[in-house]
Each structure stands twice: as structure tokens, then as C-alpha cells.
């Protein structure tokens, strides 16, 4: 029996900011979920199950927050699942929810991911003083910066490429009312003049720390037929994992990322992603990851990704827009960041992206990764339902 087609019919997110001191965690997730329901013109009673994701419990210090959030998400008396795959969790959470619909376990599923980074310190949560182990000498950016240098060595990319990405994403964020950073006076010169924190990564090429939540309502073919606005159809979705460190790991272009993308393209019948996909929202916490992921995801040959960035191909009005929302570089509630990527891809093919809409976007890729390039999750969504 074939899979049930899965449609995104509701999307909601909070205005992402550094600290939402006016709401509890319950209030934060409620706001995104309510907006997703309103978009779908559904009520809590229409939801059959809830799938929620967030990054490690240590990030807010609430153990198993899904238990306490059941009331806020209308999950009492319904199945509720928690997904956890580090920074990629927002994507994985959406895929678990989508699979429940595809398998005809549930008809309509609410999926949501969140982080309230202001209630703790993510860097602390990731660097516990484990006995006998050598402490990480560098902080979050320091962990990733050597991989960026390795990419630059391998590809021969000029050292300005990272600043081009940051400048683009911060300008895109100005068109997205939900983005955290709205740097109205941003210029390329300012990005390039910002302090070098972990050489080769500059301050303006790093992501902020945000409070925020993102929710989506996923449904089956019958639910999509009743939806008040155009749905986004899932054409392919996949997850892959590999260890953070192992002999033979390619941190610049991890095998798990390549395999994950290949699986998505196979499901969606994509032979040439560069030509067949109209827009890409990928997880870029440090600017250089744009060219790295362009290669990893098959949009450019190895060593060539930076040329797309440099040529303006990934600009909002370019031939392959990347991170139309402003990306993780402009908004980073860690647990929600993956789902925001997935939601942005869906917004684009629904034609609902507002000022950051890519004209005529019919197929869009949402991408998330996490845990030191350990987890990958991706989906491809389209304006048309999958072939029966």
C-alpha cells in the first residue's frame, strides 16, 4: 500500500527575540501552536496527536518538558511524543510527525519545536566539566572554526565568502517579521569589520541566541482538501546520523548529510537539485556553512559551493535563493531552528512567505543538522501533491 500524502496546512511561529520574559515556556509554545491552528483554521479538537522537539533538557533545566507542556498544546488524552536529535531536532520532529500521517496512524498532527535560551546558557549545557577529559579549549565557534578553515583549504575559496553570506542573510531577515536580528543599518563593510572571534569566523558571521517556537499542522489528503489556504506537500523526507568524531569523518562534507540528501531526492524524483529546486532553507549557524552545505546537498560540485555564493546565486533574487528567512544567522532558538527551516520551505511553496517570498517557488528544500554534524534531517516540499 502506498504512503498517504502529507500536507502542511498550518504554520505558526513566535517573533523570535533574545528573551521572552513575558511568557513561560508553556506560553511560548502555545503562541506558536495557536498561530499554526489559526493558519489552518482548525481547533485543538481537530488535532489527533502532538509531536514536540527541543534541544537537550540541560538548555533550560526542565527535565522532560513535554510532560508539563501537554496542557498548553491540547495534548491531554492524545498521543504526545518528544523527539531529540540536538540542533537538527526541529527537522527530525517534523519528520516524525509527517511519518505518523504518511503511515495513516493519525490524520492530523500538530508538531512543534522550541527553545527558551534566555532561561539558561546553552554553552554551559554543552560543556559540562566531565572528569578526566580535556576541556574544550574554544567555545562553540571554536569547535566549528577549524572545519571552516579546512573547507577554505580544500576549496580555495577567498576569505570574503563568509561575509557575503552573513550580509545576505541579515538583509533577508529585514524582510521577515519573525526574525530575531533586524540590523537595519547592516553593510558588507560592517560585517567585514566585525571582530574576528575564532579566526576565520567573525562576530557578524555567527548566530544569535534566541527565544522562540515554531509549529506546523500536518495532515492527510482529506485534511488538505479542507484547508483554507494552499498546502505544501511533502515530496521527500529523510534523517541520517553518524558519530561526531570517528576515524574517516569528513567534517567539511559529512557522509550522513550526502546520504540524507540523496534519499530525499530519490523519494522526490529529483535528478538535478540545482535546476529542479527553487529555494533552499538550510541550517547555517556560521556563515561559511552555506557554501559547505551547498556542496554537501548536491547543489554544487565539491569545492565549488562558494562560487554560487560569490556570484549572487543564493541571494533572495538569485537563481537559487538560500535562507530567505534570514536563516539561523538571524534567528537561533536552537531546538526550533530546524523546524523554522522546514516551515520556511513550506511557506515558500505555499506562496505565504510575504516580503521574502521567492517568485514562483514550486519546490523548496528544508535542511537541519546538529550535534557536531552528527544528525541530519531534511525534507523537500512542493506546491503540487506527490504523484499517486
Amino acid at each position, binding site marked *: 500500500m502506498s504512503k498517504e500524502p502529507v500536507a502542511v496546512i498550518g504554520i505558526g511561529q513566535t517573533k523570535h527575540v533574545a528573551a521572552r520574559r513575558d511568557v513561560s515556556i*508553556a506560553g511560548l509554545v502555545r503562541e506558536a501552536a495557536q498561530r499554526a491552528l489559526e493558519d489552518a483554521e482548525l481547533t485543538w479538537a481537530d488535532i489527533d496527536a502532538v509531536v514536540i522537539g527541543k534541544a537537550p533538557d540541560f538548555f533550560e533545566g526542565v527535565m522532560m518538558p513535554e510532560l508539563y507542556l501537554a496542557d498548553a498544546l491540547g495534548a491531554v488524552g492524545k498521543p504526545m511524543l518528544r523527539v531529540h536529535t540536538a540542533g537538527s531536532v526541529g527537522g527530525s520532529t517534523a519528520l516524525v510527525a509527517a511519518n505518523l500521517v504518511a503511515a495513516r496512524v493519525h490524520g492530523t498532527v500538530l508538531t512543534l519545536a522550541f527553545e527558551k535560551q534566555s532561561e539558561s546558557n546553552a554553552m554551559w549545557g554543552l560543556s559540562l566539566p566531565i*572528569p578526566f577529559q580535556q576541556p574544550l579549549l574554544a567555545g562553540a565557534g571554536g569547535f566549528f572554526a577549524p572545519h571552516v578553515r579546512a573547507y577554505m583549504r580544500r576549496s580555495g575559496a577567498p576569505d570574503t565568502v563568509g561575509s557575503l553570506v552573513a550580509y545576505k542573510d541579515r538583509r533577508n531577515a529585514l524582510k521577515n517579521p519573525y526574525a530575531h536580528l533586524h540590523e537595519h543599518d547592516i553593510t558588507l563593510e560592517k560585517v567585514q569589520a566585525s571582530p574576528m572571534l575564532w*579566526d576565520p569566523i567573525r562576530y557578524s558571521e555567527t548566530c544569535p541566541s534566541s527565544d522562540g517556537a515554531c509549529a506546523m499542522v500536518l495532515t492527510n489528503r482529506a485534511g488538505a482538501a479542507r484547508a483554507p489556504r494552499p498546502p505544501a506537500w511533502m515530496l521527500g523526507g529523510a534523517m541520517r546520523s553518524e558519530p561526531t568524531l570517528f*576515524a574517516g569523518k569528513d567534517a567539511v562534507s559529512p557522509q550522513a548529510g550526502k546520504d540524507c540528501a540523496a534519499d530525499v531526492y530519490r523519494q522526490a524524483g529529483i535528478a538535478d537539485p540545482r535546476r529542479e529546486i527553487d529555494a533552499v532553507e538550510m541550517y547555517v549557524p556560521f556563515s561559511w556553512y552555506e557554501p559547505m552545505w551547498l556542496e554537501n546537498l548536491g547543489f554544487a560540485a565539491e569545492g565549488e559551493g562558494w562560487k554560487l555564493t560569490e556570484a549572487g546565486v543564493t541571494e533572495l533574487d538569485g537563481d537559487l535563493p538560500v535562507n530567505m528567512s534570514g536563516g539561523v544567522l538571524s534567528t537561533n532558538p536552537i531546538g526550533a531552528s530546524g523546524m523554522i527551516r522546514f516551515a520556511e520551505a513550506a511557506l515558500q511553496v505555499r506562496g505565504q512567505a510575504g516580503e521574502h517570498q521567492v517568485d514562483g517557488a514550486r519546490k523548496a528544500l528544508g535542511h537541519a543538522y546538529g550535534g557536531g554534524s552528527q544528525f541530519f534531517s531534511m525534507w523537500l516540499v512542493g506546491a503540487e501533491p506527490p504523484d499517486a
Partner: protein
Amino acid sequence: MPEVLKAPLTVEFPFTRSLGPVQSAFLTGLRERVVLGVRTGHGRTLVPPVEYDPVTAEEIHDLVEVAPTGTVTTWAWNHAPRRDQPLDTPFAWVLVRLDGADTALLHALDAPGPDAVHTGMRVRIRWAEERSGAITDIACFEPHDGDPVQAAGHSGVFTNPVTGIVAPARLDYTYSPGRAQTAYINALAEHRNVGERCPSCRKVYVPPRGACPTCGLATVEQVEVGPHGTVTTFCIVNIKAKNLDIEVPYVYAHIALDGAGLALHGRIGGIPYDQVRMGLRVEPVWTEGARYPDHYRPTGEADADYDTYRELL
């Protein structure tokens, strides 16, 4: 086999909580010796209050005051109180349904012993002398043999409400790095880097993990690697990390020790930071009493060819 290492690991952090409107009113009320519940759409009064109706999922904010007296609905005796528990002498954990409430609140009951506690017993709040807007503003419950105390009908509106709290959390573990890392750490004490080779792919893991994550096989064959190695990639750290007493800028590098199947991480010294490069040949520098090399310094050998370490970035 030598004894496996163990050490205590304490994880603690002062998490902050933004309360939102309902919890803000509840905790501010405790500061003012007022207990507030919230009324649901079905007319039930929930104490402690919640923001969303557990039955209908509707947002609820109709606050009602309940009495400081109530009835124990169930309990468990705590023979040996732990640090930061409400009382430092043995006490009962109780669920108390306050008069006027439909649900029960978890707290401590001060009683001389388990024989003095029973389900259905009447209790009242003993308020803390100093109150800040926290659940600990209720010091505990105590037996009550008088009449129910009437709630005054507080509106739930306060001046200077509490909007956030600090919730310190602490977890105490006994950590063990396991058999393979114990052997590695013991060898480090002799300034030797001893990894383990996978019987299938032949890669040498340093530090060893006891298994090869690629092949899924246990590793037992010990192999000494280094002490020289190659800087495979690096970054220059320009901002001081918390708890690290290292002057910036400094170089944080991936170092592939000769014979190792993957790079480990370390600081590069003995060379100006802006002269460090990929391929630089280095050796460890030990300081007295340290478990790990303090840093790695250039050996003076010619730089390694990129092709010799391109798989080890």
C-alpha cells in the same frame, strides 16, 4: 585488569524562569500569604494553578483564593531528608487539597513520625518568615485541629508582582570513563599516548573508546602513537572563554599524532599565533602534575604534505 577510574561529577546551574501571568500571580500570592487557584471552564479550581485547561486546552486566568487549611489526600514518609528539602528533620511528603480547591498541592508536612500522619487528616500552611514569591514561602504544612479558615476572596492582582524566579538545579553523579579511557589516562601519566586499533578497519582510536564506531567491533589491541604529530586544521581564538586561564589570542588546533586514525584537540604554543599553519609538525609540552599536555610546540621538522593528513582534518 587495572581498576577503572571513577570521580564525582556535579552538574549545577541557576536556571531562570519567566513565570507568565498565572504562575506570577500564584507565587506573588504566596509572598503575601494568599493561595490562589485558577477556575476551569467546568468550574473546577486547580491549585497550584495552570495556564491552560487540562480538559479543554483553553487558556484560563480566572484566579480564586483558597484557604490556607486543607486535607491530606495521600502521603509518604521521608526518613532521611536530603539537602535543600523543605525540612531537615524526617517529615511526610503530602498531597494537600486546600479548602476550596479541587486538586491537591505537593508539599512537606511537619509531623513527629509516620504514626502521626494519615490520609484525611486536617492540615494548615506554616508560612516562612521571609517570603520572596516562591513555593518555599510555604515553609511546610502542620496538623490543624481547628475550623476551616475562610479565604478572603483576593482578586489576584498585586502591586510589584514577581515575574521571574531562579530555580537552582543540581545533579550529583559518579562518573567513570570506562576500561579503555582508564588505560589511556594511566598511560598519559607516563607521557605516553596509547590508543586502540580496530581489528577490522585497522584505524587507531586515540583516545580509545573500547569500540570502533564505524565497524561496531570491540577494540583491544593497544598501540602507542605520537609523540609527534601534525596540525591538520586550527582556529585562532580571540575571545577569552569562561573558566579558561589562557591569554588570547591563542591557537586551538586539530592534531593528528603519528599513527593515530583521527585528530585530537590541543593548543599550539612556542610559535607566534599568526605563524601556525596546516601541516605544522608539533610535539607535546608537559607541565608538572597535569593530566594532558599543556600545549604542543613545533618540532622544527619540515611541514607535512597536505596529502598525508587530508583525511585527518
